C-alpha cells in the first residue's frame, strides 16, 4: 500500500505533499516496499522456511518409505507431537518475554507422576486429578517467577535448579516402584478419543465460517474508520486456504481412526495463545517486555507481574503436556520428561521462527516447528535409523532452520 492511498482513504488531501526529507520518489517507494516487507512479525520470511522444510522432509521420507504419509502414520505423528507441542507453546511465550524455562521437560514428567499417584495409587477421580495436576504445575511456575523477579536470579538459573530439583521430586513422588500404569479412564481417553467424520466436518465448517465472519467484521470496521483493510479477495483466499487445509487433514485422518482429541487440544491451545498474543492487552504487554523491558517499564506496564505470569503459564503448559504424554504412553516412569523433551520443545519453537532474544515470534511456531521435529523423528523411526544418526540429523536441521532465519534477518 502506498502512502497516498492511505491518505485518500479518509485524510485531507493536503498532507500528500512531497516528503519533507525531499527523497526522490523511487527511493521512497523502495523504502515503503522494505517497510511493508518488514511488517511480518515472525521474522523476515515468516513461516515460509518451516513450511518449505516440512515439504522437503515429507517428500524425502515418503520416497524412502511409502508408509510415511499413510493415514495411520500421520495419526500417530499427530499423537506424538501433541504433548511436546503443548509444552512448546508455553515455552514460546517465555521466549517472547525474553526469559527461558529449562524445567518444562521435568515439570511435565513430575505432572505425570503426580497424576499417577493421585488417580491410580490414591483413587482420586481422574478429572479432579487432572485439574489438581494443572494447578500444581501452575504454582510451580509462579514459584519460579517469584524467585526470578523478587530475588533477582535469572530465569535460566532458577529453572535450571528446577530441572534438577523437580526431577528429584518426581523420583520421590514415584517412590521405589518407579512406574505407574494407567487403567482406562478420562486420562487415557484424552489420547484414545477420535472425532468421527460428522463431528470433524461440523467442527471444520464452524471454524471456517467463524474465521470468515471475523475477517469480514474486522474489514468493515476498518473500512468505516477509513483505515487500510485487507481486500475481500485476500480474505476469501485466506478462508479458502484454511478450508482446504482442514478438509485435507480431516479427509486423511478420517481414513484411519479419526481426528485425535489430543491434536485438537494442542491446536486449540496454539490458536488461543496466538489470539491472546495478537489481540489482547496482555499479549501486547508480553511483546513489549520482550522487545524493550525498560521502555515497557517506563510506559507503566507491570513488567515483573508479566514475567511471573508467563513463567507460570509455561509450567502449566508443561503440566498439560505431561498429562497428554502419560495418557498416550498409558504409564509414567522415572524417566518421564527427562531426555529430549525439553530440547525438542526448544528446538520446535526456535525452528518455527521464535527469537531466543525475546519480542519476536508466533504461537504457530510451536505447531509448525513441532510438526517438523516430530516428522523427522517419526520418519527416521520408520526407516529404523540408529539413534546416533537421528540425533545428528535433528541437530543439523535445527542449525539449518535457525541459520535461514538469521541470514534472512542480516540481508535486510
Amino acid at each position, binding site marked *: 500500500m502506498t502512502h497516498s492511498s492511505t491518505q485518500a482513504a479518509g485524510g485531507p488531501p493536503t498532507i500528500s505533499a512531497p516528503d519533507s526529507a525531499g527523497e526522490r520518489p523511487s527511493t521512497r517507494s523502495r523504502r515503503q516496499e*522494505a517497510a511493508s516487507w518488514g511488517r511480518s512479525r515472525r521474522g523476515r520470511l515468516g513461516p515460509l522456511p518451516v513450511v518449505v522444510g516440512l515439504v522437503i522432509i515429507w517428500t524425502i521420507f515418503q520416497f524412502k518409505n511409502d508408509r510415511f504419509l499413510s493415514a495411520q502414520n500421520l495419526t500417530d505423528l499427530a499423537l506424538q507431537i501433541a504433548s511436546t507441542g503443548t509444552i512448546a507453546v508455553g515455552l514460546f511465550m517465555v521466549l517472547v518475554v525474553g526469559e527461558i524455562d529449562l524445567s518444562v521437560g521435568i515439570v511435565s514428567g513430575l505432572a505425570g507422576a503426580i497424576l499417577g499417584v493421585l488417580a491410580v495409587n490414591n483413587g482420586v477421580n481422574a478429572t479432579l486429578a487432572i485439574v489438581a495436576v494443572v494447578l500444581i504445575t501452575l504454582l510451580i511456575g509462579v514459584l519460579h517467577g517469584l524467585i526470578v523477579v523478587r530475588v533477582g536470579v535469572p530465569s535460566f538459573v532458577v529453572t535450571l535448579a528446577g530441572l534438577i530439583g523437580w526431577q528429584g521430586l518426581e523420583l520421590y513422588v514415584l517412590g521405589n516402584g518407579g512406574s505407574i500404569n494407567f487403567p482406562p479412564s478420562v486420562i487415557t481417553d484424552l489420547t484414545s478419543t477420535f472425532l468421527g467424520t460428522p463431528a470433524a466436518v461440523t467442527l471444520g465448517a464452524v471454524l471456517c465460517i467463524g474465521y470468515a465472519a471475523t475477517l469480514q467484521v474486522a474489514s468493515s470496521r476498518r473500512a468505516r474508520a477509513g483505515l487500510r483493510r485487507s481486500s475481500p479477495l485476500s480474505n476469501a483466499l485466506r478462508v479458502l486456504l484454511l478450508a482446504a487445509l482442514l478438509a485435507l487433514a480431516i479427509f486423511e485422518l478420517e481414513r484411519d481412526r479419526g481426528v485425535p482429541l489430543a491434536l485438537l487440544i494442542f491446536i486449540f491451545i496454539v490458536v488461543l495463545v496466538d489470539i491472546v498474543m495478537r489481540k489482547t492487552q496482555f499479549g501486547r504487554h508480553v511483546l513489549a517486555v520482550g522487545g524493550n523491558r525498560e521502555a515497557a517499564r517506563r510506559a507503566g506496564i507491570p513488567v515483573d507481574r508479566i514475567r511471573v505470569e508467563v513463567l507460570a503459564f509455561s509450567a502449566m503448559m508443561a503440566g498439560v503436556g505431561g498429562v497428554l504424554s502419560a495418557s498416550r504412553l498409558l504409564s509414567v516412569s522415572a524417566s518421564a520428561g527427562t531426555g529430549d523433551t525439553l530440547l525438542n520443545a526448544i528446538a520446535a519453537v526456535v525452528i518455527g521462527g521464535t527469537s531466543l532474544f525475546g519480542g519476536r515470534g508466533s504461537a504457530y511456531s510451536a505447531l509448525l516447528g513441532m510438526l517438523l521435529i516430530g516428522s523427522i523423528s517419526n520418519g527416521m523411526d520408520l526407516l529404523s535409523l540408529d539413534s546416533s544418526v537421528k540425533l545428528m540429523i535433528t541437530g543439523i536441521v535445527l542449525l539449518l532452520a535457525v541459520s535461514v532465519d538469521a541470514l534472512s534477518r542480516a540481508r535486510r
Partner: protein
Amino acid sequence: MTQPILRLRGISKQFAAVQALDSVDFEVWPGEVVALVGDNGAGKSTLVKVMSGVGPPDEGVIEFNGVECAIHKPHDATRLGIATVFQDLALCENLDVAANLFLGQESVSWRLAKALAWLDEVEMEGRTRRLLQALSVKIPELTTLVESLSGGQRQAVAITRALLGGPQVVLLDEPTAALGVEQTALVLDLVDQLREQGLGVVLISHNLADIFEVADRAVVLRLGKNGGNFSLDTATSQDVVSAITGGTGALRRRPVRSREKVHDDA
C-alpha cells in the same frame, strides 16, 4: 499569555561534593522553543531531570502556570503536563507505530480481567493517523514495525507519544544527536509544529546550527549556574559560544583553516 507555563527559581542540587546546579532560574513560555545549552557537565541533564521528576531538586521553587508545585516523581510531571522524550526514546522496536504510541495505555473494547482485555486496534490506528497528520509526520504505514523506521521517524514517533497525554511543556533531550541532515530537518519541522500548537518546548542540544534554526531563546548553563539568556533573533553564535565556554578570549582552541590554506596544502 501573561505568564510562563513553567518557571523554576533558585534550583540547586548537589551530588556528594559536586554542586550540579547552583541557584538556577529557568522559564518556558507558551509557543516558545527554548534551547538549553552548555558544555558537558554544565548541569543540563540535571535540570531536565528536575523538570521531568526523575531527580527532584534540593532547593528551589517550581511554578506551573503560576502555581507553586512539587515534582517528586515522573508521574507528578506527567500529571502537571510536562512530557519528556529522553535520548534513548524508549520505543519497542518489535512493535508497530500505533502499538508504540499507545504502549501501556492501550484502547480496549472490552475487558475480561485486568490485562485480559481486547485491544481496540481500529481506534488506536485511527487516533495514531490523526495525531501524525496533525503534526505533519510522514510515516508510510502505521503498521510498520519501529525497527524498520529511520532515526528521524523514530524520534517523531517518540515525540508524538509524548503528546498523547496533552502536555503543555515538552522536554526534548538531544533529539537530533546521531541523525543525518535530512532526518534532523524532519525533527526540527516537528519542533516547529509543537510551537505552532502553543506548546512550550525545551530543547537540549549540542548543535548550535539546529538551535539557531528552530529555537527562540537560548539559556546557557555553565558549571551549574545561569551563564546567559539570549534571544536568538539578536544574538550571534559567537555570543552563545562565549557564554558556554565562559570567556570572550578562549573562543576556539583551534585556529580555523581558511579555504586558501587547504588549497595551498594540496
